[in-house]
């Protein structure tokens, strides 16, 4: 019974395909999977906007939306209607073609990233041999759409915001990729399905998730830092900081295109946290062996909601980073630690099992982390600010 429940979607798809002629089956199965993704993740986007506003409210000792429906549950629908019915103003001097294409490219790239995420046991749209590489290839297209948005609006704020956003995304994409290299070295394959299958095994009730190893935990922390920066969220939302440059690259967008930007940003966040779950938190694997009767996709979405809650919690807590702090953190802490993490993964792989391996690896990771952190802290000496031009 649990097996059928676990494979309910796969069986349903096979049953639906049964009605089609054999020739159209591969195409139809792809279309079905795409429809499933295009429905579930925007739905998750709606739920997350509600979660975010209620969560941030509660963190700041206030209620959060409670007018539209019970507990404000219809707030996402209200937001959607509001942004869809708003007038879509395009600046006169804007470059209309590029201005129109930017949000489309952003949302397309965000959706493409879901092709390789294993949502459940053999529930992945396409089992690519180089799945992780495909994910990062599509992730790098997002920067292009950010530039197109910023440049085509022909306003100083949006161009400045776009340049900041691209500088931030590029300098945090390097550690993001390096953090995954440690996992790929250990799993021995770039395919996300293999990575999850390796983590789905248990030793008497404890799972083999990569996050429970020294290099896995450090990799997970680095991956989450880089993921927050990659999706321009909370402590790294300088490019769209309302107080700094109003709204950064999507300042000249309104109505439906603005909603598309929001959708693209949140989908990007879900995709990177989905990849974090696949790489470090055991994808759809249950946390304990006696819990495997719960269907696999439930675990994936529970972990996704947990990570989204964590993002919201971080957004409610941490102040925004300045541009130089942001860059210092990227190039002086996150990147060296990611390189070190690869070394530790190598050491972990070749050392025999046992406590010694744990001690050596944690030592190799912990000591440089403290030294680098001290380096970052020592830099924080507040001297009198010297103005270059305004003498």
């Amino acid at each position, binding site marked *: 019974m649990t097996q059928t429940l676990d494979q309910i979607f796969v069986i349903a798809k096979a049953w639906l395909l049964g009605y089609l002629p054999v020739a159209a089956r591969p195409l139809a199965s792809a279309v079905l999977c795409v429809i499933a993704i295009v429905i579930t993740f925007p739905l998750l986007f709606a739920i997350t906007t509600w979660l975010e506003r209620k969560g941030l409210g509660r963190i700041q000792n206030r209620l959060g939306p409670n007018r539209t429906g019970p507990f404000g549950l219809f707030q996402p629908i209200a937001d959607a209607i509001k942004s869809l019915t708003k007038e879509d103003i395009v600046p006169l001097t804007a470059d209309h073609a*590029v201005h129109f294409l930017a949000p489309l490219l952003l949302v397309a790239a965000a959706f493409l990233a879901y092709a390789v995420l294993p949502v459940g046991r053999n529930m992945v749209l396409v089992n*690519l*041999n*180089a799945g992780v*590489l*495909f994910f*990062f*290839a*599509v*992730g*790098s*297209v997002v*920067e*292009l759409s950010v*530039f*197109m948005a910023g*440049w085509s609006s022909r306003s100083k704020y949006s*161009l400045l915001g776009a*340049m900041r956003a*691209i500088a931030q995304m*590029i300098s945090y*994409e390097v550690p993001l990729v390096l953090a995954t290299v440690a996992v790929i070295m250990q799993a*021995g*394959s*770039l*395919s996300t399905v293999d990575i999850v299958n390796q983590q789905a095994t248990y030793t008497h009730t404890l799972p083999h998730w990569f996050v429970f190893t020294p290099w896995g935990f450090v990799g997970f922390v680095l991956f989450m830092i880089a993921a927050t920066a990659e999706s321009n969220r909370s402590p790294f939302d300088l490019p769209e900081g309302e107080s700094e440059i109003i709204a950064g690259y999507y300042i000249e967008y309104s109505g439906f295109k603005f909603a598309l930007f929001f959708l693209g940003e949140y989908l990007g966040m879900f995709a990177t946290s989905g990849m974090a779950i696949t790489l470090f938190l055991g994808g759809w694997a249950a946390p304990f062996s006696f819990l495997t009767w719960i269907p696999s996709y439930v675990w994936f979405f529970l972990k996704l909601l947990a990570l989204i809650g964590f993002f919201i919690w971080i957004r409610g807590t941490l102040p925004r980073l300045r541009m130089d702090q942001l860059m210092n953190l990227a190039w002086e802490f996150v990147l060296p630690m990611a390189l070190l993490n690869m070394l530790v993964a190598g050491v972990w792989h070749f050392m025999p099992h046992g406590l010694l391996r744990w001690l050596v690896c944690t030592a190799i990771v912990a000591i440089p982390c403290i030294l680098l952190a001290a380096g970052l802290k020592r830099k924080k000496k507040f001297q009198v600010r010297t103005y270059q031009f305004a003498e």
Partner: protein
Amino acid sequence: MTAAFLILATLTVAGTAAAMGLRNAVHCVLALTVGFAGVAALYLQLDAQFVGFTQVMVYVGAVAILAVFAIMMTHSPTPVPLPAYSRHWLAGSIVAAAVFAVLAWAIRAGSTSAPCLPPQPGISVQQIGDALMHRYVLPLEIMGLLLTAALIGAVVIAMDRKEESK
């Protein structure tokens, strides 16, 4: 000459022709990314997945953004309305056309025996990794050296030396 190939070929040629033909530099780069994406799709069609994704990641993700940043930094404040093409554009295009004619003739005159499509190689990333690490390890190390040198070189060249500009 399958339909997919025709679509991708026209997409790529259109993208690259626009990249070389448009007036506005930023439009050129955006058209270029369409061309690169087309080439990446052609790689996928030729079952070279790894190279296809690397192409998207390196070219569309990095080189295009790099070119756009360079255009932004060299954007002269007063965009003097220069004609987009250099003075001797005619000579250039004749040379290019000649090169294409020679190549096309060579291809057509080449082995007319149409090699049948060999079975799908089913290359896995594992094999590429092994090849890189065993047979091509020397080029890999040299490539690492080259990329580091290029990284440092580019920064040193483009660095705004304070004392020089004083």
